């Protein structure tokens, strides 16, 4: 099981968390109802204390192991200093404006390094699809290295927007269709 894009991951996350939310609401509602009944409720399932603790630990740690193995950008991000990118784009940010290296054209599957540099405030660098969904992002701190290594597993045109607040003027930091990814089958996304 691997999530190729953020859309697939967020769809899975949406379903999983909704199921969990419904479950915890039901458990508390069931608990509240039975708390007031004079006759003792029959336990649906008996969970020993140490099993519950083990479950919490397994969920806390297992969640990260699951994402490491199913989300491709996790290991890529951790190991990015040892990976040679296919393309590198330097982006300068100052006075609430992006300075891009023209149109950033990429082939699907290429490893691309976005190197962002801020000379004044803390900004964000976010890549968005045309429907507004988020592809990826990073914070852009002045005086620090801000390098995002990304492999596009989808084709299309992507907007760039600052994902961090840098004063009211930063609200207009938006570059339409700054990134173009090609190389997919005709009419298909992948």
């Amino acid at each position, binding site marked *: 099981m691997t999530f190729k894009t*953020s859309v697939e*991951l*967020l769809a899975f*996350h*949406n379903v999983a*968390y909704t199921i*969990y939310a419904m479950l*915890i609401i039901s458990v*508390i509602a069931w*608990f*509240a109802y039975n*708390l*007031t009944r*004079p006759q003792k409720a029959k336990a649906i399932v008996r969970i020993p*204390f140490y099993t*519950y*603790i083990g479950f*919490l630990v397994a*969920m*806390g740690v297992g*969640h*990260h192991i699951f*994402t*490491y193995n*199913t*989300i491709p*950008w*996790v290991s890529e991000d*951790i190991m990015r200093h040892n990976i040679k990118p296919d393309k590198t784009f330097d982006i300068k940010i100052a006075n609430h404006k992006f300075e891009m290296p023209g149109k950033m054209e990429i082939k699907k599957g290429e490893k691309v390094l976005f190197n962002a540099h801020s000379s004044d*405030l*803390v900004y*964000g660098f*976010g890549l*968005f*699809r045309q*429907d*507004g969904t*988020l*592809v*990826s*992002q*990073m*914070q852009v*701190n*002045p*005086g*620090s*290295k*801000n*390098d*995002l290594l990304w492999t596009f597993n989808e084709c299309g045109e992507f907007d760039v*927007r600052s*994902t*961090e*607040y*840098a*004063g*009211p*003027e930063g*609200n207009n930091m938006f570059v339409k269709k700054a990134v173009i990814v090609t190389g997919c089958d005709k009419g298909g996304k992948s």
Partner: protein
Amino acid sequence: MSVMSGTNFDASKLTALQKVTLRAVVMSFLFYGLASIEGTLMRMALINPSLPPIEGHAAHYFSIMTVHPIIGIFGSTYQLVFAAFMFLIPYLTKKPLYSVGVANFVWIMITLGSALAWIAAFVWSYAPLYTLYWPLPADTEQFKVIGGIVFIVGVALIMVGTLAFIYNIYATIFAKVGIHANKTTKELLISGFGIDGMLNLINKLRGKPPYTKEPALSLPVVAIFRGTVDTFLDALVILGAGILVLVYLIADASGLSWNVHAIDALLYKNFFWWGLDLVADGLVLIYVAGSWYLLATLITGEKLFMENVARAALLLELFVSWMVWSHHLLADQGQPEMMKLISGEMVTAFELLTQGLALFITLMTLWKARPLKMTFPLKYLLGGLLGFGLAVPAAIIQADMGMNRILHNTQWIIGAHVHIALLTGLYMTLYSVVYVLWPLVTNDTKLYSTKLANAHYWLHLIGSIGMGAFMGMAGLEGMLRRHFYMDGEFRTFMILAGISAIMMVTAWVLFMINIIMSVGIKGLIGIFLPAKDDTATFGIEPQPSVVAQQKA
């Protein structure tokens, strides 16, 4: 019964301790109303940006966004929590509060400070947001120096009030009077940090007798003691950041042009988040766990289930809360990977364990005492447990290097996690505390209407979960949390979140009507008049009256 005189409330019979508690509670709920209205204005602006008073002005929108958490967290939550604890510590330890004068100083400082911060944003549109990411708060090209100075002085006053609260709490706990007359400072410290609970557990595993059968401090006092350590550290960090900003602003006003990049933005972010996170992951979770334990024991009249485990868990949270701040920096590429992995992911995951334990212990304490009457304290407590049951797993999900890449700074974070944690989890718990303490601090004043109280409960519960959920859904579709969308993006979710926000404002109005009709306008004024009775302790009796009412 009238709006002037209330039900049977008599402010002239209140002690100094009761009055100082009620003064802070009144201010807290006024600030809550302000934060609630501010939040609703922002929600309305995201449905239709041209609506007044924001009328499409980004500067105005972000000014509101800057003061909204200051008013909500400090003006309201801090006031309410501090008021409750300065009443509860004398009540639980059966000792007088160290100083009622200091308690008065606390609510006045926090009220003044919150008001100043609000004025700075309202009058001068000072809007660096609560995150104060360096060098934005010192950016005098975007913001007026006077606005910045007034804002920082306001926040500093809040922190001075906070330090006074901490002093009052520890001075009361360590006072060698009453039941602690023969206790040493060492015994109180060991108990305060939950070390006795840990030693009891270790001795049990080794087959030895318990370290202590009767701990020096009761469990809720231990939680307050422990949470206050984080409150202290957090106050120092916020004061430190405030002084830094103030120095730069004053230098600018003096005509000096200091290089803001002399301060490393990422290092500052680490320092600031370390302190700020102590509010969320230290102070809130520990204070909340302590409040749950107290409420569960007061509601049931029984001992807490697995008390030694609860004490040890509070000790564990001591280390956990100090080492989790990096989960706020998972999208910062300059942050070392090991810090992201250890602090941001692994240690943060322990909060699922500590909060899960608190949830389990509270539920089990209630379950063992059933059947119980579904009174307001119990009803709100269950709402609070549900709130954290929803919000804590949401936090663990986003504190992950894979998920954070696509969730950071989206409406998911502020909706599904923060607002559900605060509005459903924390406030429902606090309302439970309010209803438990109501007969104690008002001398058994009759509540005006249970129908209004019920309407408040359901409107707040459904509104808070609804707003968090719809904001979260918008976040999953890419909506950012610190962006003013003006072209109708995500409108369906924003309409639904807006309706939920209006439900919560309505809930607050109903709650205030109920309280004002109970204490009356005269009573409300009377709370702020000097107390004739300077008693600084409360009800040294075997059990509070609420316990008797609770048992079916």
